[in-house]
């Protein structure tokens, strides 16, 4: 680690969230404000002190409106990160960089969406036009065939992964069953008190073979916000500091957004490999140093190669890890202890970062013992991001 390293320079000091539902009954702006004010109150920081913002390009609440309503006077940093859930960890990475370089002392990150009640991501109708801008041309290889949903794009990778390594629909189901088990004991989860069995997973309808309904995350309304400031200042604030030990984004060879079908091998997630290598290098930690992890679970099949990219098991052996229940309650690496996006809510991964914060603080509904470090990953199949959060 050099003096320039991001590791340990910034901390998450405030966390706020709304309830998670299928219909929030209020505007996204209101959700953003509720979660942001809750995060600032949690941190004990006055709203006027906020100097920076970061969110996702897909978030429809602009930072200037939040800044206006907070009464911010001195906002010097704002960024939005593209690629949907692939951004999940990136606003925290951006915030940490802004804090570490002194551009902004206090940064709010947020994701607020009425994704279920106002619009839905998986409808297959996106209105790509025929003008020659890149996205129209790129998705023009798929839309005319009706190959037009994230579940279907993931299915193409999943089928090849199954073929290469002998993973089965049941293995995907075991991911779903384990996170729903956690959701069942997390009162904030939409599926609180509603665990599922592997039989129920296997009986759920096909969405895009090889994906069944219960391989797909929920669609949700809700918001999560966090406050990031320097690790030094964090020591004097209300909450136990959650140190940002490493953060990175990732793109690598053959990268596309959901359609990287043209790589020599499509069974891995090499962009996540880039993130893994960087996170471990920044933090000086390895997979054995993680007591729990939040592994992005918009669709279960992509949980398996993520476990491999981060070295929790060897290439092609995630199915064995999962069959042994190592990812579940009581396993070697319990993942998505909040219930994941399959069980808690789909707030585009930001609720996963929130769970990592709670695990480090020791306040999670399904608290893992003696947590020192938590890995968090972002959306897969797209340019992505990741974080290692831990105790000071």
């Amino acid at each position: 680690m050099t003096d320039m390293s991001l590791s340990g320079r910034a901390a998450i000091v405030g966390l706020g969230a709304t309830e998670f539902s299928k219909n929030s009954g209020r505007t996204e702006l209101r959700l953003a404000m509720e979660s942001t004010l809750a995060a600032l109150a949690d941190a004990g920081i006055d709203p006027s002190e906020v100097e920076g913002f970061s969110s996702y390009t897909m978030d429809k609440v602009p930072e200037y409106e939040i800044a206006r309503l907070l009464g911010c006077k001195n906002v010097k940093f704002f960024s939005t990160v593209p690629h949907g859930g692939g951004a999940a960890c990136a606003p925290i990475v951006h915030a940490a960089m802004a804090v570490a370089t002194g551009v902004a002392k206090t940064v709010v990150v947020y994701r607020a969406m009425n994704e279920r009640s106002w619009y839905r991501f998986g409808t297959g109708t996106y209105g790509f036009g025929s003008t020659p801008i890149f996205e129209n041309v790129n998705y023009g290889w798929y839309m005319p065939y009706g190959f037009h949903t994230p579940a279907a794009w993931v299915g193409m990778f999943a089928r090849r992964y199954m073929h290469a390594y002998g993973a089965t629909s049941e293995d995907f189901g075991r991911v779903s069953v384990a996170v729903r088990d956690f959701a069942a004991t997390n009162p904030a989860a939409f599926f609180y008190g509603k665990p599922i069995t592997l039989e129920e997973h296997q009986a759920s309808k096909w969405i895009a073979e090889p994906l069944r309904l219960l391989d797909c995350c929920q669609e949700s309304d809700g918001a999560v916000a966090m406050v990031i400031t320097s690790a030094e200042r964090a020591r004097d604030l209300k909450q136990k500091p959650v140190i940002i030990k490493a953060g990175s984004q990732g793109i690598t060879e053959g990268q596309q957004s959901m359609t990287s079908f043209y790589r020599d091998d499509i069974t891995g997630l090499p962009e996540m490999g880039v993130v893994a290598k960087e996170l471990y290098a920044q933090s000086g930690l390895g997979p054995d140093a993680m007591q729990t992890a939040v592994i992005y679970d918009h669709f279960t099949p992509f949980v398996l190669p993520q476990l491999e990219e981060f070295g929790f098991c060897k290439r092609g052996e995630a199915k064995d890890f999962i069959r042994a229940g190592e990812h579940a309650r009581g396993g070697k690496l319990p993942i998505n202890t909040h219930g994941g996006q399959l069980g808690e809510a789909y707030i585009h991964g930001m609720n996963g970062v929130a769970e990592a914060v709670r695990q480090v603080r020791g306040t999670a509904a399904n608290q893992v013992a003696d947590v020192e470090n938590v890995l968090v990953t972002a959306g897969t199949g797209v340019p992505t991001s990741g974080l290692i959060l831990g105790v000071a």
Partner: protein
Amino acid sequence: MAEQEWMSEVRAKVGREYGRVYAWDEVNAPMIRQWCEVMRVDNPLYLDADYAATTEFGGIVAPPAMLQAWCLEGLHMNNYAPGSTDENPYEVLKTMEAHGFPSVVAVNSDLHFDRYVKLGEKLYYTTRLDAVGEEKTTALGTGYFVTLIMSFFSQKPAGDAGDDERVGQLLFRVFKFRPANVPKPVEKSAAPAVPKFKRPKPGVSDDTRFFWEGVDAGKLMIQRCTCCSTLRHPPAPVCIKCHSFDWDTVEASGKGSLYSFVVMHYPEVPPFEHPNPIGLIELDEGVRLVAGLVGVKRDEIRIGQRVQVEFQSFDDGELTLPMFRPVAA
């Protein structure tokens, strides 16, 4: 044509009786008066107690056309009177919706009255799923006529012997359909056409135009770097290996093998047929492309299966797409 499997689930429900939906209030004069006011009905049989007492009914009766009104949920949706069933007699429509028949139009609403109802009577109705027709194609589209029959009864006071008496019946028929790809209207004055669902057109750029022009000519073209001869798909303005901007194209054999595949079931988006099998094809020349699969059974598709391109025309020739069909190894 053999019927879709899911229709047997619908057929199995034909003849089913759904439970009672009760009236919020007994038949009463204030509601009758308000209804008559709104409908501009001034028949004294419904409104004038003194006159009504002189008639064969011996008192005020409700206008027959009000029959349905007594058992409605009121201002708030699905807020039915206590004791009403929570079964949904329209459940088969939901099943049809889930299988690609999103639109609905009411085609019949026939009320039949057995007798007048008097003040103080308590009404309820039950619903029978009476019939689901064979698949039919009308000007609106292809779908099913679904007939529900609601029977209205007057509840006997507690202790009275015998069955509740039927007072009327409503036959309600809808057409649940997938909108047709209707031909262009002949003249402008014709009734507004049902929108025609077409396949989305690909965005085409200077870097990719050769591919779609090739497809229109029945040829599968691949881009080739003229500097290092690397083939590439999807096309790009520059070679990924040597960064040369110079390229030409070669015609592919159209033969390849299935590298991966997915079978799309949900959501069903018109105009696509579901299940919709999509392949990731590795051409013998070494590049991969995504295309629809034809002539496959969804449970018999295998990675490694040999496939051959064929060109299919859609939307009255507006769009040609390369599709792949299994061939013997």
